[in-house]
């Protein structure tokens, strides 16, 4: 076999499983062995349960042997960002607050993956409560980038991206509130997709900013991401923001050539702060699309510069409200020296939350507080309308937008000590969440230092099938996704 088992794609592995050349137990054991070999350096996992994973794999093999296989995810180990509930497994949000929490029930995406036959593999590290862009805000450990262990994997779903790049899972799940799937996918050289708001249920996802959060797939290829998205998407009565839409077969849609597409290049995404090597790689990708006959058109998203400001009002306001539930009473960390019930709140939260979470709670509480609501929160919601309108205006002329995912390749651990500098990493990804749009990052090259670069494709609401087809066309003509870090 030319490619090691742990670097095979979901599609390749599904074929091996289907033809009896590989069992799920063998595959799962190989993933466990790989994880044990490299994770002391990568630190993508908060925890995993070897015996439980092998038992799930054995059950999958038994189903398959009985002719009851459930499709392409049957027997495939899937890694979970540690904010998505799997009944009986830890659910920590990489926070001391939930260090000992065990999920009492399955998230809807977990139920869907179990119904598709997947093996629910380990718990993947993140910035505490998904707040950060480097996975350095984890209360337990910083995850490192498999391409350069002195650098960050991005965040907040850094564990999900790094585990995939290091061969510690076949596909993984992340969540994206301001770029938390796409940015780490770009920095680790894998595919990451944030679905349209409402396509994937948030039931069983630890809430950060509820009007922005979406669960989405990480995968080695666009086709693998399409398969996983197909399993995740769909209306759920348990999430009142879940939208009823007709779901296409995302995978089947890849083969149907719909090119040439009309692709927009938002000029605001190519200004100051963009690393020249990233710009060059994205320009080459744009040239590829032009060469295949796509119409390339410059467009303007004039409110782009306000995205970070709007985001850090809305996201922190929603976080200050969502995280009020961690009071030390019903679950989570409880301070031992509190003298009364209210004192439990103050001290448990002081002990349980890390610095970034505290900062965001304070900022969110401030912008919502009496006398400031109109000046900050209401104004931010209005500018959010303008940002969304910018995108919808652009879609009058084009099918999708092409941009860099991140202004730079992976940065050094500890490099961005200043919170505002870290927030500005998300400048190209945040608008998508504010507008509720689907977007994905696909590898489009490497820096001279050997670090992956990601191309972001931003699509129209609920047009994930088209977005995946556009990305797939690029990927078919390039081999970036076949390169792996040496660990």
């Amino acid at each position: 076999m030319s490619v090691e088992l742990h670097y095979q794609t979901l599609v390749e592995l599904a074929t091996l499983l289907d033809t009896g050349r590989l069992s799920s137990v063998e595959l799962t054991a190989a993933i466990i062995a790989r994880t044990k070999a490299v994770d002391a350096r990568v630190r993508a996992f908060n925890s995993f349960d070897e015996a439980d994973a092998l038992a799930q794999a054995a059950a999958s093999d038994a189903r398959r042997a009985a002719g009851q296989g459930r499709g392409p995810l049957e027997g495939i180990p899937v890694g979970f960002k540690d904010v998505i509930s799997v009944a009986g497994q830890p659910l920590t949000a990489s926070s001391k607050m939930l260090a000992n929490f065990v999920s009492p029930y399955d998230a809807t995406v977990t139920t869907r993956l179990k119904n598709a036959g997947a093996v629910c593999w380990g718990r993947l590290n993140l910035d505490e409560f998904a707040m950060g862009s480097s996975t350095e805000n984890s209360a337990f450990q910083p995850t490192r980038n498999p391409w350069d262990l002195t650098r960050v994997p991005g965040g907040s779903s850094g564990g999900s991206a790094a585990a995939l790049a290091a061969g510690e899972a076949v596909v993984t799940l992340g969540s994206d509130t301001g770029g938390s799937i796409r940015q780490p996918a770009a920095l680790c050289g894998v595919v990451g997709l944030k679905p349209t708001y409402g396509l994937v249920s948030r039931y069983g996802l630890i809430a950060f900013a509820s009007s922005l959060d979406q669960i989405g797939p990480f995968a080695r290829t666009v086709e693998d991401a399409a398969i996983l998205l197909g399993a995740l998407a769909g209306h759920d009565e348990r999430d009142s923001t879940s939208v009823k839409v007709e779901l296409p077969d995302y995978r089947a849609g890849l083969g149907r050539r719909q090119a040439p597409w009309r692709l927009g290049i938002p000029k605001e995404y190519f200004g100051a702060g963009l690393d020249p090597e990233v710009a060059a790689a994205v320009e080459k990708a744009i040239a590829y699309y032009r060469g295949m006959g796509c119409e390339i058109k410059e467009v303007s998203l004039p409110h782009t510069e306000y995205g970070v400001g709007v985001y850090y009002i809305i996201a922190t306001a929603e976080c200050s409200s969502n995280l009020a539930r961690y009071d030390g009473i019903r679950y989570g960390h409880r301070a031992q020296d509190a003298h009364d019930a209210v004192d439990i709140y103050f001290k448990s939260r002081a002990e349980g939350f890390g610095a970034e979470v505290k900062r965001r709670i304070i900022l969110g509480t401030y912008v919502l507080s009496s006398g400031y609501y109109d000046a900050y929160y209401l104004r931010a919601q209005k500018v959010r309308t303008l940002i969304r309108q910018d995108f919808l205006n652009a879609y009058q002329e084009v099918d999708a937008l092409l941009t860099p995912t991140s202004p730079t390749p992976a940065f050094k651990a500890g490099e961005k000590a200043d919170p505002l500098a870290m927030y500005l990493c998300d400048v190209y990804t945040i608008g998508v969440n504010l507008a509720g749009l689907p977007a994905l990052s696909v590898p489009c090259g490497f820096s001279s230092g050997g670090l992956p670069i990601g191309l972001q494709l931003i699509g129209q609401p609920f047009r994930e099938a088209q977005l995946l087809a556009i990305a797939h066309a690029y990927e078919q003509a390039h081999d970036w996704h076949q390169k792996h870090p040496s660990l």
Partner: protein
Amino acid sequence: MPVPADLNIDHVAHLARLALTPEEKTRFVRQIGDVIAHIEQLKQVDVTGIEPTAHAFPVANVWAEDIAQPGLPVELALRNAPAQRDHMIVVPKVVE
């Protein structure tokens, strides 16, 4: 960056039910001040007549059938409680 004169960290921390150390207060006022200075640029935007967006795809009046369904068993619901006794969560006395 200027520290916002009206960020009363003690008041806001009290609203958030969050005990902060003196060192955290000093650091957060400075760091949040930087972020607020950045956010101030939103004041340049003309938002006259613009409706606020709370959700990108607002879904109104989501109804569920009123059908009794099994909830979490008590043992599971209390599994993560910091202190429990007789199927109840234990807290300090709240009334004298």
